[in-house]
């Protein structure tokens, strides 16, 4: 691979991976907040409202970082992937423009209202603003996923005379069959992140047992987060994970073979649970397999033949089979762990023993970073799996970069971003830990602590 291509790929991969750490929490926390506020409406005591307020404080900080790291993404289609933009802009420009116009404005404008309008709005109106923020964030999620879904499975286009693709059907683009399940699976992943964060917070406060921590609010966080995490984790496996797998099996057989480490085509193909792929020799070392399951999952028949990499021409195979294999297995492995741990914790919850089980509470606290890993691994699976295609079947990744931007220039900006994002990461962790350490009730003086806080002061002053 020539160095410019590698640099541009790393550039996009690094910036988008870092960026996505934030929106997944945004999209995951938003429904948690809505649920807590709904519960607060129905229960007179303050615990649900307090829990919602804590999540809102964290949400505010997280949101700003998401916006700040998101702006470079829109630019990057043009700066580093100009040939791709020239080729596909006629189609994906629609979904990207929709995201910019609709979803961002919806989120940004209702966010302030939600964060600071609690005292000025009725509980119902405040819930409505929380719901609007949730809807806005999930809507922008759809437009972005629809864009990637088109790259995985192009629809609604026509080849134009100048070699580019042009839009031929807006509804086909928006209702891409690939997009639906990819969206459900992506949102589910975000929900797992947000739910585990919620449950982990509750568990942490219960473990900490500080006198000014409201135990009931902490328990509320734990319960709501845990139930959501359990449901979301299960649904990631079935139906959305399974359906995604089916789509890949049908439309991207090379991807499936590489993901599963299936080097040779066979009937009754086994599902490899663990093992290290050796791409030079074309085999997997020290495996743990379940016979026949791969065929069953993909083609619904135990003895169905599953295409292996041997039947795929070399130039149509994903260029990094090993990394793809690992990304996929890390994601599924973690997903399995999530199902197990939430299942166990829910069982303990049902028996009323969860709050006293320090081991389980600790596990939930320590589990919080892992959904981030799983989400990242999942996206790596999707994007590495799409290789060598940038637009599946239509444009190769190597043909999509900005031809006139040299490796040197790309490296300059990549290093710049790495440095800047390191600073951002430290700032983010410091800010979040400050808010978390103040506890569920929070310091009354330091309510939502961003510039958005100013809305509270000034909107009161303007009265």
């Amino acid at each position, binding site marked *: 691979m020539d160095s410019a291509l590698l640099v541009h790929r790393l550039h996009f991969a690094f910036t988008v991976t870092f960026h996505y750490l934030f929106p997944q929490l945004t999209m995951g926390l938003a429904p948690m907040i809505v649920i807590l506020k709904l519960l607060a409406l129905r229960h007179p005591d303050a615990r649900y409202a307090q829990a919602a307020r804590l999540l809102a404080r964290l949400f505010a900080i997280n949101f*700003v970082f998401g*916006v*700040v*790291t*998101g*702006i*470079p993404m*829109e*630019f990057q*289609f*043009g*700066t*580093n992937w*100009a*040939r*791709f*933009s*020239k080729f*596909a*802009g*006629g189609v994906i*420009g*629609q979904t*990207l*423009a*929709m*995201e*910019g*116009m609709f979803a*961002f*404005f919806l989120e*940004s*404008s209702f966010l*302030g209202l939600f964060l600071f309008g609690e005292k000025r709005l009725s509980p119902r109106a405040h819930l409505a603003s929380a719901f609007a923020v949730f809807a806005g964030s999930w809507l922008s999620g759809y437009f972005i996923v629809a864009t990637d879904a088109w790259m995985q499975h192009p629809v609604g286009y026509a080849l134009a005379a100048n070699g*580019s693709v042009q839009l031929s059907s807006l509804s086909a683009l928006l209702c891409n069959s690939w997009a639906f399940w990819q969206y459900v699976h992506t949102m589910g992943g975000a929900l797992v992140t947000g739910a585990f964060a919620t449950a982990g917070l509750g568990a942490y406060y219960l473990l900490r047992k500080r006198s000014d921590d409201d135990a009931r609010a902490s328990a509320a966080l734990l319960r709501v987060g845990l139930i959501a995490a359990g449901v979301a984790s299960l649904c990631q496996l079935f139906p959305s994970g399974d359906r995604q797998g089916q789509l890949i099996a049908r439309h991207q057989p090379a991807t499936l073979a590489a993901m599963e480490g299936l080097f040779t085509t066979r009937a009754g193909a086994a599902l490899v649970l663990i093992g290290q792929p050796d791409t030079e020799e074309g085999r997997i070392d020290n495996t743990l397999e379940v016979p026949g399951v791969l065929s069953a999952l993909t083609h619904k028949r135990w003895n169905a033949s599953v295409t292996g990499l041997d039947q795929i021409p070399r130039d149509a195979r994903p260029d990094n089979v090993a990394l793809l294999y690992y990304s996929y297995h890390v994601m599924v492995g973690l997903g399995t762990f999530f199902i197990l741990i939430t299942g166990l914790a829910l069982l303990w919850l049902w028996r009323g023993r969860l709050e006293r089980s320090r081991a389980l509470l600790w596990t939930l606290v320590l589990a919080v970073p892992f959904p981030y890993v799983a989400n990242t691994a999942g996206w790596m699976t999707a994007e590495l799996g799409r290789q060598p295609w940038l637009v599946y079947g239509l444009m190769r990744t190597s043909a999509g970069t*900005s*031809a*006139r*931007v*040299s490796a040197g*220039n790309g490296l*300059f*900006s990549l290093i*710049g971003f790495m440095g*800047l994002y390191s*600073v*951002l990461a430290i*700032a983010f962790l410091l*800010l979040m830990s*400050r808010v978390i350490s103040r506890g569920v009730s929070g310091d009354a003086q330091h309510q939502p*602590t*961003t*510039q*958005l*806080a*100013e*809305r509270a*002061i*000034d909107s009161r002053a303007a009265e």
Partner: protein
Amino acid sequence: MTTLWFLLVAIMLVAYIVFDGFDLGVGAIYKLAARTPEERAAVRRSIGPIWDANEVWLLAAGGTLYFAFPELYASSFSGFYLPLMLVLWLLIGRALGLELRSHADDPLLGEVCDTIFMLSSLLLPVFLGAALGNVIRGVPLDGDATFFLPLWTDFRPGPHPGVLDWYTVICGVVALIAIATHGANYLTLRTTGEVNRRARGIARAGSLLLPVGTAVSLAATIAVRPTVLENFRAHPAGFLIPAAVVASLVVMALAARRGRERTAFAA
């Protein structure tokens, strides 16, 4: 249809400049207008709730540009790679400086945030103005409709220009004056006391500097790209635009003297 979308994209870009322009302008004159911590806090509060929404215009305009003119988007963004990366970092710097400030208990950290905020807000209009200058001056597009400009070569707008040459730097400086004045006008609307007084002074100075700067950049533009006048000659109605520019500059200067803050800001 293409003309329609050209207009819409132009409107979006103008909206971005108008809205994010004043919060960038406020940032650019931040340390000039506000000296004490309370004054600085007041200035930050004047743009605090809205800068984020203002910035979204950039994303919306970019998205609209991408969809309507993908070749222009692809060509110009990759050709202007280096300045765009710098612009992105400055945007991040401005956001970080502003948002972190409210969390900075330590006064030294506060100073750092303030400086980052001010520098980023100051440099951004320079780059944006220079970008416009580049578009007017022209870039070495090849048969593939692609180009790549280094940040500078010899500072002359000849056959091998960089992003920064004497012409585009003039455009950048004029843009900075315009945006700083815009920001100062905004501050006179939103603040009281000392800050208001200082902002008024800056606005007044700006409203006098700006016509000078505009005239210089106009002369420079005609020197660099004489064809610029053709559209005006073909459609004399177009002369309304520069006439409006002149009128608004005059109004702004007069309004600033007389303390008519809102008029000044609108101009």
